[in-house]
């Protein structure tokens, strides 16, 4: 199974080397760093580490960046694509379990959730409440059972690559992408992963943006297009 690891990175020159090194340690040969309009040395660092570098000419946001990776995976015939944040929060050691789920055909999309048993994930009460609410909303809207829909740790098979290359939400896309996958008939499962604290830099979601996040994602989930309608609003506008 050819596997591509997609690492979206925006100004992550400091965190990238250790992320890529860890990926190499987990037998992930094909690492694709999507430099989403960084102003630091991200693309050179990634290239020096031997990663495939996809460089967006300007900042598209996490959704657009990740989709660039899925397009590359689709065009180069990868069977599996994994998505790992460039800030070093995700431990690539958990990739193996997720890859096995895909390989055995038990799932099409695997999400690495932070709320499992063997997990020391701590975050603010409000944030946990928000995540639980989104998990509930996703289950209500499309039936996917995921406890941590905001996690950016994803592994998808061929069908997921095709779907996400074609359609990927923008602006806080993670929960919406799960709903989209489930609506498109893909099986979404969750495994428990442990998150680490970031080594450098700050999370892009501060308390001020939490409200916007919840509002935007709620609306997106409530207005989730049906399959037929989504075809009509295809964002792949290539003629």
């Amino acid at each position: 199974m050819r596997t591509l690891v997609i690492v979206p990175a925006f100004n992550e020159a400091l965190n990238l080397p250790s992320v890529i090194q860890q990926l190499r340690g987990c037998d992930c040969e094909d690492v694709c760093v999507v430099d989403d309009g960084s102003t630091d040395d991200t693309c050179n660092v990634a290239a020096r580490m031997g990663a495939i570098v996809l460089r967006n000419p300007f900042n598209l946001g996490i959704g657009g960046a990740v989709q660039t990776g899925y397009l590359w995976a689709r065009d180069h015939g990868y069977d599996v694509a994994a998505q790992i944040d460039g800030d070093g929060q995700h431990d690539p050691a958990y990739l193996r379990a997720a890859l096995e789920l895909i390989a055995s055909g038990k799932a099409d999309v695997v999400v690495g959730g932070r709320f499992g048993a063997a997990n020391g994930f701590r975050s603010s009460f409000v944030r946990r409440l928000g995540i639980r609410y989104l998990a509930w909303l996703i289950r209500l809207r499309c039936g996917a059972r995921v406890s941590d829909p905001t996690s950016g740790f994803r592994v998808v098979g061929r069908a997921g690559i095709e779907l996400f290359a074609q359609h990927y939400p923008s602006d806080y896309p993670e929960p919406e992408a799960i709903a989209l996958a489930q609506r498109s008939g893909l099986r979404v499962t969750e495994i428990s992963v442990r998150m680490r604290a970031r080594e450098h830099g700050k999370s892009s979601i501060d308390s001020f943006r939490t409200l916007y996040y919840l509002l935007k994602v709620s609306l997106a989930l409530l207005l989730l297009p049906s399959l037929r309608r989504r075809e009509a609003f295809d964002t792949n506008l290539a003629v």
Partner: protein
Amino acid sequence: MNDSSLLPSELRLFAGASLFLLLGWVLRLIRRQELGLRESLLWLVSTSVALSLVLFPALLLRVAQILHVQVPANALFAAAFLYVLVNLLSTTIAVSRNAARARRLSQECAILRAEITELRRTLKLGPQR
């Protein structure tokens, strides 16, 4: 009731002239190919409707009666507001569509750039600047 009792003549003259100028401007932009016909169709249609309401206030009176608006001039203001809203929405739709296109184009750019880098490496041409 004659037309000037429905709408003051000055108002009709001013609104009519403004809309007429606007219509002429839109047509001129289309002729000079600075505005796509597809995008400007809504402007043409909505401006023509607005112009006919101003030129034939009897129409406006009918609209006012249907909506139970006491003063026809108020119906005109309401219509003007609606006219702006509709055209603004169509502009927002165009902006959204273009944003989606720009996103896909820059993704294609990123991919092509990576392909070129790969090619140059295999051809031993050295890195591009």
